[in-house]
């Protein structure tokens, strides 16, 4: 069956289906129950599944992740909502020293099928700490998996796949795209969770993006096409581990690559991708891999976020620079 869904609603339906499929799935988070979450992603779920499966937690992110570890040890599959990206840090110790390491520490005896849902990124005119892009902090941490969705189809399937996945998954939701709509076939066979996907074919430059920036990259490709320039756009989807096979294939063809993300450029995902792609495609590259990202400043007050965030023009600017190199 095909439905026109926003990303937010697709997540809601995906969560619902995951909960129906597996009674061990427990949602935890601040305000996710009666309120349905500040973005309403869990709307109606507590009403239907009860307070034991959709848990309004105390206001403590370490508590959310730490008790999720214990629930996982008891055979549950906790799905933790972090209300905003900037509030994941109180839970950082549990995530980095426990969630990420327990499978290895126990030599595989203890599974950690925990999903950490984080609405991430900027562009919604919010106050401080509500627009962060913390993905690199997690991607640098062995033991975690990190994915970012960019559209309703991946939202619907991705959340279910993340929940069914045996390892801990940091699941990044592009909050400013929550209201973007798309057709979702709820009977289809989804793409694998951890695979990149070419979302637009092209020949001149390979543009990589994930989460909210996929739309931006596609807009840039559209605009470039009008000027006769052909961009290949790859939605990375998997941030850790990266799936660079289709990227390498693409860059070997185009010889040029631009990576786009909202996170600060320094040590953002673009750094890793540039290093890896340069190593894999050294003899094919006509230009260095160029990075378009947030500046190396704290996320600015919202009146400045349009200047801070990569947009279509900044992507095209990098494309120009890659072409001229």
């Amino acid at each position, binding site marked *: 069956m095909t439905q026109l869904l926003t990303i937010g609603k697709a997540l809601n339906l995906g969560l619902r289906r995951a909960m129906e499929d597996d009674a061990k799935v427990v949602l935890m988070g*601040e*305000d996710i*129950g*009666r*309120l*349905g979450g*500040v973005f309403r992603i869990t709307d109606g779920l507590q*009403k239907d599944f009860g*307070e034991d499966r959709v848990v*309004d*937690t*105390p*206001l*403590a992110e*370490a*508590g959310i992740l730490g008790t999720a570890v214990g629930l996982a040890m008891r055979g549950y599959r906790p799905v933790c909502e972090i209300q905003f990206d*900037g*509030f994941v*840090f*109180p839970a950082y110790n549990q995530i980095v020293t426990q969630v990420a390491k327990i499978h290895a520490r126990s030599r595989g005896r203890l599974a950690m099928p925990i999903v950490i849902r984080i609405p991430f990124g900027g562009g919604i*005119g*919010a*106050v*401080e*700490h*509500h627009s962060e892009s913390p993905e690199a902090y997690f991607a640098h941490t062995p033991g975690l998996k990190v994915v970012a969705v960019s559209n309703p189809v991946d939202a619907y399937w991705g959340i279910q796949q993340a929940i069914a996945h045996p390892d801990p998954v940091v699941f990044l939701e592009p909050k400013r795209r929550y209201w973007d709509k798309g057709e979702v076939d709820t009977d289809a066979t989804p793409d694998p969770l951890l695979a990149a996907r070419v979302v637009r074919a092209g020949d001149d430059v390979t543009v990589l993006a994930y989460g909210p920036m996929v739309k931006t990259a596609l807009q840039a490709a559209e605009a470039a096409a009008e000027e006769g320039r052909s961009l290949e756009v790859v939605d990375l989807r998997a941030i850790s581990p990266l799936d660079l096979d289709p990227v390498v294939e693409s860059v070997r063809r185009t010889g040029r690559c631009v990576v786009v993300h909202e996170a600060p450029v320094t040590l953002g995902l673009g750094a890793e991708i540039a290093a890896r792609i340069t190593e894999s495609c050294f003899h094919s590259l006509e230009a260095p891999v160029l990075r378009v990202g947030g*500046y*190396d*400043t*704290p996320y*600015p*007050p*919202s*009146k*400045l*976020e349009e*200047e*801070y965030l990569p947009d279509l*023009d*900044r992507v095209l*600017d990098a494309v120009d620079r890659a072409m001229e190199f």
Partner: protein
Amino acid sequence: MRELASRPLSAAVSGMTTEVVDPVPGAGAPHLPRQTGLVQLLTPEGERVEHPDYAIDVTAEELRDLYRDLVLVRRWDVEATALQRQGELGIWASLLGQEAAQVGAGRALRPDDTAFPTYREHGVAWTRGVDPLHVISLFRGVDNGGWDPVATGFNLYTVVIGAQCLHATGYAMGLQRDGAESAALAFLGDGATSQGEVNEAMIWAASFSAPVVFFCQNNQYAISVPLERQSRVPLYQRAAGFGFPGVRVDGNDVLAVLAVTRAALAAAREGQGPTFIEAFTYRMGAHTTSDDPTRYRLASELEEWKLRDPIARVKAYLSRTGTADADFFADVEARADELAAHIRRGTTEMPDPPGTAMFDRVYAEQTPHLAAQQAQFEAYQAGFEGSHR
């Protein structure tokens, strides 16, 4: 579904047996006298009542000043909410219903004390002489903290729940080292009491006998989550477990809040260590302008709390006792109108910051790396000169 209506609200405000919990003898600082109820000095009906331990001597003028504060602060809040609705602010966190808690606490501070607010303490900001437009500029997205925290003794808003409690404690440790006779006042919400860092702050404050007072506005909710999820026992009792006194005050009674906070701050300044104050109050509005409280609480709850409005009771008292006359009330209204106009005009005329502002002040001195990024940014922006951007 949990029964909202069954919540014993009235009992909580009037009948509940609340006592200062004394730590074991010899440990901590049992400076606040034992009491036998929620501290209240002005009833919801505007009756002045006495409390054996919290006598307060306020002149008629002080009382009128407090009233004026309350009204102006509410007016500011109402105006800001309206401005948000009109698209002038990104968001607004309303203090509606918490005016007495904030004005009472703020007026208890001495000039050399320092307040460490959350994101809702506009009433305290007012008492510290912070220009409302500086607070509004944050919610408008112009900056992340527009006033001078040092000059005002009012630290910047802290959005990450509870983080400021440790800052206040550390600052208080600095006061100790300086031999200063001042105190730090940390604000927090009921929800914040669940954060590890907040509990660490109390542990540190106790361990070092730091001159800090934790002022918790228990407004019954952390966004949609009712107090019961954070604690099954009254919050003021938390302090005893850490070895210092906790006290519960009627947060809608500006006099009681003033008296209790003054006493706690005085004790802190005198080296008696921390106190935890639970100001029992109610968030009469939404959590922020983005919130819809009808999804999680009944209208009747709000109706009940309206009967305990923090401003009405002061007005009733002033009127009935003849402490203020019609002229005074008219004057206050006029000032409120002026303030509202100032806020409205100031907000709509507030200029956007230049794009380069984000490269400023990341560090004490701009690094070559950031200077290069700024130069790139400027060159890039210049490319659009004359175009639609």
